[in-house]
């Protein structure tokens, strides 16, 4: 059911990217997740996205909380440092890490339990601070690792494996993030590689907080009839808001596409997001319109996917905080120590 199995140690296609690496160089250790788990497809998509973007893996920091989803960072980018922190608290760790070195790419991977329950506060405040990171939620509507309890993203009346109905309304992280002012909010599906990879690429290039809420079915506990997070249900109710292409530079756009049916959004990095809209009137930079569109899809029982909202003008956290360009972690006593004179003045002020 996953479009690709567990990352393999030997990959058939030894194609090399611009920095001379093969896809294999972006892989991680062998997954210990269930065969068919959506999370493994997401890991594979991350590998693809990083490979295609010619990223130096060691310039990525992978962070996560606790859960099956939060184990995923082991399964991609072996050459990147990883931090599997504590349940629901990855956002704060990422925030601190980001301040220490603004020059790495921060990839946070979390689950719906990890983010929407115990971690919702940290999530919201990371959004509010515009921490420059990709925040991936591997959303299966359940607590996989603790064996299938309802999570807070589970839909009202959706059933668990034992037939019990969920009694509460879901928390929609994408809507939350939009309301809180995140600059990049996308929703996707682990089973839709074609949609997911370009979204991940755009999210990585985006300068600011980029939420990618990915429905990622749990084959062990939430993939049955009656669940709204099963492969079948999501395939049937997936409503794509637009088709996204990630274009590394402007030049490539003009050669490839006619304008008109497309909107191009220029990112801070110089790359472009090219959106082929399905609903012509839809404007992903208009908060109200986006929320309205999501509500309407919900009313029709659909899950709106794709790049939902983008605001490339947001400033990211280090910028807001006026943090210097040199990574703080590389500064030594020369940059950081006040002088003898300084201390003398301080002493004088306490006389």
């Amino acid at each position, binding site marked *: 059911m996953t479009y690709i199995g567990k990352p393999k140690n030997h990959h058939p296609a030894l194609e090399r990217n611009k920095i001379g690496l093969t896809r294999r160089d972006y892989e991680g250790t062998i997954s210990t997740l269930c065969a068919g788990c959506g999370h493994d497809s997401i890991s594979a998509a991350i590998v693809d996205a990083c490979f295609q973007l010619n990223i130096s893996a060691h*310039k990525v920091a992978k962070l996560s909380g606790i859960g099956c989803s939060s184990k995923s960072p082991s399964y991609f980018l072996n050459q990147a440092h990883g931090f599997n922190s504590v349940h629901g608290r990855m956002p704060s760790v990422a925030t601190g890490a980001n301040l220490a070195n603004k020059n790495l790419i921060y990839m946070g991977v979390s689950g719906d339990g990890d983010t929407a329950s115990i971690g919702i506060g940290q999530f919201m405040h990371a959004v509010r601070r515009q921490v420059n990171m990709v925040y991936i939620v591997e959303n299966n509507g359940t607590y996989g690792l603790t064996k299938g309890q309802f999570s807070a993203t589970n839909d009202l009346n959706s059933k668990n494996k034992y037939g019990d109905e969920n009694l509460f309304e879901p928390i929609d992280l994408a809507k939350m993030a939009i309301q809180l002012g995140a600059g990049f909010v996308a929703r996707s599906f682990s089973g839709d590689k074609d949609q997911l990879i370009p979204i991940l690429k755009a999210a990585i290039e985006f300068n600011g907080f980029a939420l990618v809420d990915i429905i990622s079915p749990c084959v062990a506990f939430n993939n049955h009839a009656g669940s709204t997070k099963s492969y079948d249900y999501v395939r049937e109710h997936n409503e794509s808001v637009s088709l996204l292409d990630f274009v590394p530079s402007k030049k490539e756009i003009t050669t490839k596409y006619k304008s008109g049916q497309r909107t191009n959004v220029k990112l801070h990095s110089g790359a472009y997001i090219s959106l082929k809209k399905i609903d012509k009137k839809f404007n992903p930079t208009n908060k109200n319109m986006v929320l309205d569109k999501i509500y309407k899809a919900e009313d029709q029982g659909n899950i709106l996917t794709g790049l939902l909202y983008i605001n490339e003008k947001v400033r990211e956290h280090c910028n807001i905080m006026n943090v210097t360009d040199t990574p703080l972690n590389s500064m030594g006593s020369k940059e950081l120590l006040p002088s003898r004179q300084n201390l003398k003045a301080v002493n004088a002020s306490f006389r």
Partner: protein
Amino acid sequence: MKKITSVNDFVIKFANVNGSGSASANQMFAKGIFRYGVPVSPKNIFPSNIQGLPTWFEVRVNDKGYLGRRAGIDIAVPMNPQSYNKDIAEVNAGGYVLYDSSWKRNFNRNDITIIELPITSLCIAEFTNPKQRQLFKNLVYVGALAYLLDIPKEIYIKLIKEQFIGKEKLIAPNVKAFNIGFSYAKKHFQGLCDIKVKKSNLTKNKILINGNEAAGLGCVFGGATVCAWYPITPSTSLAEGFTRYCNQFRVDQVTGKNNFAIVQAEDELAALGMAIGANWNGARAFTATSGPGISLMNEFIGLAYFAEVPVVIFDIQRGGPSTGMPTRTQQSDVLLCAYASHGDTKHPLLFPADPKECFEFAALAFNLADRLQTPLFILSDLDIGMNDWMVPELNWDNFDEFDRGKVLDAKALDKIDKFGRYQDVDNDGIPYRTYPGTHPKKGAFFTRGSSHDAFAAYTEDGVVNAENLSRIKKKIDLSPNYLPKALTKQDRNFSEIGILYFGSTEVAMQESLDLLAKDNKPCDAMRIRSFPFGEEVWNFIDAHKTIFIVEQNRDAQLKTLILAECKTNHKKLKSILCFDGSPITANFISLSIKQHLGNKTLKKVARK
């Protein structure tokens, strides 16, 4: 009635309503004496409230350098009718009361001198603006006190001028208010007060600073670049101090950008998470909090302990448990900090005794945390943190590169075959680490709070995990090699009685020892400055028949830590405990010890 007569040795206590601006006037009063060369120790006893509740400000003036709190008031300045009864009751026989006699009052004590200063009436007469009438009351009594105590008015006028640099308009009315008090006193109070301040040079090379300010500055010198915190009394001013000094010394002159990042987090869990994230990524980062914050940080503390991420945590202790007494002092988080988080853990603690040590330990802490790769706590308290203490000038000599402990850079990685994040290469329990982004091929590892092997790989092999846990234990057991040693008051032990104490109790200890000696009970004393304890502590305990452990908590928490190490006989350990939220006094310590010892006379004999 015999009036108290003294020079440079008295306690004065102001009683005010909080939010009335009294604290800064009272602080100025104390600073004036300090500037005049006489040691002072001001204590602000304030409510957990913003406006309208009783607040007190106690200043001890003492040229012997006894600067601990002393019970009994020599001069009271009760400005708050709400607390008159209590305030007057505290005045020693022969003492003085200076009050706002705009409303006359009979205090029913004829063993004290009542000095009547019609403050409100004077203000009404001299100021038209109602706000000013209120605000300047405080300076009026400062003026009167300057006269009564014989402190030159120029000192205060200079202080006023300094205070209002940038708001020069305010200088004149403030000076005016001061003068109103001074002149009134000169006219009416001549000869009334036999307590005097006499110029001295005892404050030379000394400063008057609070511990949070000093710790904030210490963090700057320690090379901290990231601070994540959440407001909580009494730690807030530490982060604010750090912020101020960063803005002063850490803004790039050319770009105007900050060589630091300070985040007011959404709560304490996030604050510590950010500090851990930053440290993991190679920046020096810390958080500052108080008891409730430590409670909330427990889970993250365990992560940093087990994943071996350095992080510095300031706990400015207040009255616990729970919300407790947020504006009172205690030393009651010792046990929680030492063993914070579930599972087997043990954390190094530093116990600064005064603002100067706050400065020094703060700076040192970052080296220690990096060296030990573990969370390191600095346990200060409200008394040190928020009160101004007289201490020697702060001093800094080391402009070398920071000691980052065992960190491998790209070059070092190139040289080694296989990097094992949790290997005990040097047989000291301390492994090597790498920062993210160091090397394209080597040195990456997965940091995790779940069980792992020497190569940071996840393992469910219980034996491998137990080995790793044992290595961590070894690291912490050996940490006294790096931590500040305990200090003794005496060059050489000479008594069969030893006193162990720590932190802010220091300021009361010399006086306690002198009181005990005067009573033929000379004792030895050792101040513990860190946990786990070094050999010197066990030697000191061994060298004495009885050990009194002085603590500002209910449950003898330091004693518990000593007992827990299983190295000493329980019978020789006696607790002296003060937990009413007021800084411990020399009188309390010496009396408690005397009570234990009874009539026994101790001899001074040189001991091992």
